């Protein structure tokens, strides 16, 4: 053993040089590996993929197919229509505070740009030149069944595009419920409001009057709108 070890030490260069050269070559080869792992052959969302004629990595499901869990059996939920094809006038889910709050949040995101936060049809895009929609709280729309609003969101109406892509079914119903709340609020008389809100309003009004200053009066009124 000792003899063998000594022997190999006696001529180091001749054995190690090829090994070292091999190591250097190996290290050079790894330089090219980096991007392979960074950009793998798998398709990421929206990635270009030239395997397909249209170059789109994200594929559209073939016509007539339904993804698991997406069978639209419940026509009231998915279309806002009953078995006879008439627009439904009841929500296909329970109405509670959470649903209305969700509806308010989604209305602010997707609808207020045109319809305005109160549904008056004076949203930013309308102020920039888009055709003004009817106020959501006008008499004609108050008389529409709730399924009507769901139907318009789903299929579009006039210049309004379908929002089915941007707003999932459950949220469209939440917005429809919130539109009912807007219709109620925009046509409500002060005497119909809960007494704490009435008190708050009167207190603000009194405070504004005692200030006796038009500017302050406007501020207080604006706060309570």
């Amino acid at each position: 053993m000792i003899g063998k070890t000594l022997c190999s030490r006696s001529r180091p260069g001749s054995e190690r040089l090829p090994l070292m050269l091999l190591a250097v070559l190996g290290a050079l080869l790894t330089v090219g590996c980096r991007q392979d792992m960074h950009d793998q052959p798998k398709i990421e969302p929206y990635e270009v993929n030239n395997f397909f004629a249209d170059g789109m990595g994200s594929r559209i499901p073939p016509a007539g197919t339904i993804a698991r869990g997406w069978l639209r059996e419940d026509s009231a939920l998915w279309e806002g229509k009953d078995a006879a094809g008439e627009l439904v006038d009841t929500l296909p889910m329970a109405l509670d505070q959470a649903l209305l709050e969700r509806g308010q949040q989604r209305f602010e995101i997707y609808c207020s740009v045109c319809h305005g936060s109160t549904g008056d049809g004076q949203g930013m895009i309308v102020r920039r030149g888009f055709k003004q929609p009817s106020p959501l709280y006008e008499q004609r729309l108050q008389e529409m069944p709730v399924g009507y609003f769901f139907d318009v969101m789903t299929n579009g109406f006039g210049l309004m595009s379908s929002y089915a892509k941007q707003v999932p079914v459950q949220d469209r119903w939440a917005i429809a419920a919130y539109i009912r709340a807007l219709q109620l609020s925009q046509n409500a008389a002060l005497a119909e409001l809960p007494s704490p809100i009435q008190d708050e309003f009167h207190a603000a009004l009194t405070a504004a009057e005692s200030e006796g200053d038009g500017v302050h009066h406007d501020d207080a009124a604006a706060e309570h709108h």
Partner: protein
Amino acid sequence: MAQIFRPSTNTIAKMSIILGLALAGSLVGLLMAFERSTYRTNEGVVYAQPVPFSHDHHTAAMGIDCRYCHYSVETSASAGIPPTDVCMNCHKEIWKDSPMLEPVRASYRDNTPLEWNRVHDLPDFVYFDHSIHVAKGVGCVTCHGEVNKMPLIKRGSSLQMSWCLDCHRNPEKNVRPPEEVFNMEWERPKDDPDYGAKLVEAAGIEGEQRLTSCSTCHR
């Protein structure tokens, strides 16, 4: 026979060892600094796009919520690049004759996608998911920068692993209440030192061991 080396050679030999090490060390340091520079990470770099879309105009000036266009951000890994239909929701009426928007109209007419150049691109071995970050209270602005002030979109952060880990180690420094995630102007209250810790607790964000485990981001 005269000696080959003078006594001062000792000093030169020692100095050359120190200098050699210093040189090797600074070379490594230089390479590390280079890898972290914005030249390499492209942080703050604007990418050429088919249409000069202004986030500044659409969000800050028009008041459109991030989710109007990026509507899958709350439910899926990808925040979503809006299909051309979404642009046309407004632009079939607004600026409908603008030459700047011709690529958008062409895309709509011919049913071909607009080819945007990706700005925030993580390596494919990172499994980033927008929905969980949004649900736990990481604001858009935290990673993407002040997009509401960008006439042309630029990369908001380095996207390096050390940057990810900075937050995964100390989420309390970066999270906000879930309802403020999409608010680009939100400011963290300065009076409460435990503010972040409370949010982490309320959101049920797991501890450092879980957040920095390899398989949290790589699989």
